[in-house]
């Protein structure tokens, strides 16, 4: 995640980072997770890291770059 933030801060132009965070009290609890660690492990299982891709699927995370505009 830190790598993503660093890349975004360094990038010249508009950059967007989507960080998946867990909301255990209002969301995880209703889905049946007992604690936030369980939810985090589910995220770890569900999302696959795909670093050098042109397009990402629904369950992939990675960095997408456009060519910098001067």
């Amino acid at each position, binding site marked *: *995640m*830190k790598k993503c*933030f*660093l890349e*975004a*801060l*360094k*990038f*010249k*132009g*508009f*950059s*967007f*980072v*989507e*960080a*998946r*965070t*867990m*909301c*255990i*009290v*209002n*969301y*995880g609890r*209703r*889905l049946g997770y007992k*604690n*936030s*660690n369980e*939810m*985090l492990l589910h995220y770890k299982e569900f999302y696959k890291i795909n670093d050098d891709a042109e*397009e*990402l*699927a*629904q369950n992939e995370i*990675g960095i*997408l770059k*456009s*060519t910098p*505009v001067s």
Partner: protein
Amino acid sequence: MDNNSRFKRYLKLDLLPTPWCPGCGNGIALKTICQAFDELDLPKQGTVVVSGIGCSGRSAGFFDLDSVHSVHGRAIPVAEGIKYAHDALNVVVVSGDGDLLGIGGNHLLHAIRRNTNITVICYANEIYGMTGGQVSPTTPHNTKTLTTPQAIRITPLMFSLSLSTVIAFLPALRRII
């Protein structure tokens, strides 16, 4: 301060602990942002954090930097205004998915079109957490929430999915203009 705790200089330590619920991911993200700031050694005088409304909007108050807690969904226009007024500043937007993608979706689209040099960090927790668990733009398919008791059947908006085409298209657009 040693190397591991140097990121703490970007935080208002007397305000800690944060008001977020135990087990929330926002605190982790806040710490990681500070570590990234520390790694790039951003000056404290030249960095502005803008946040929207929501649980994640609270995080602007914890940075020991100039910060704006703006109105709901309009964090990006405020940040863009700051950037246009003073180009030397590093402007970072920290906000949630309901704020940036839901209510401020239009502003996000046009910020991409204008290609302002700002960084937007979105805490996507897949729900409107602060108001009690309503369905948000990033809620995954087939999930039961407070406002969708029979499970949502709409594909979630993921920035990388729906807007990557816009980013890819931007340089070409620039050439035409």
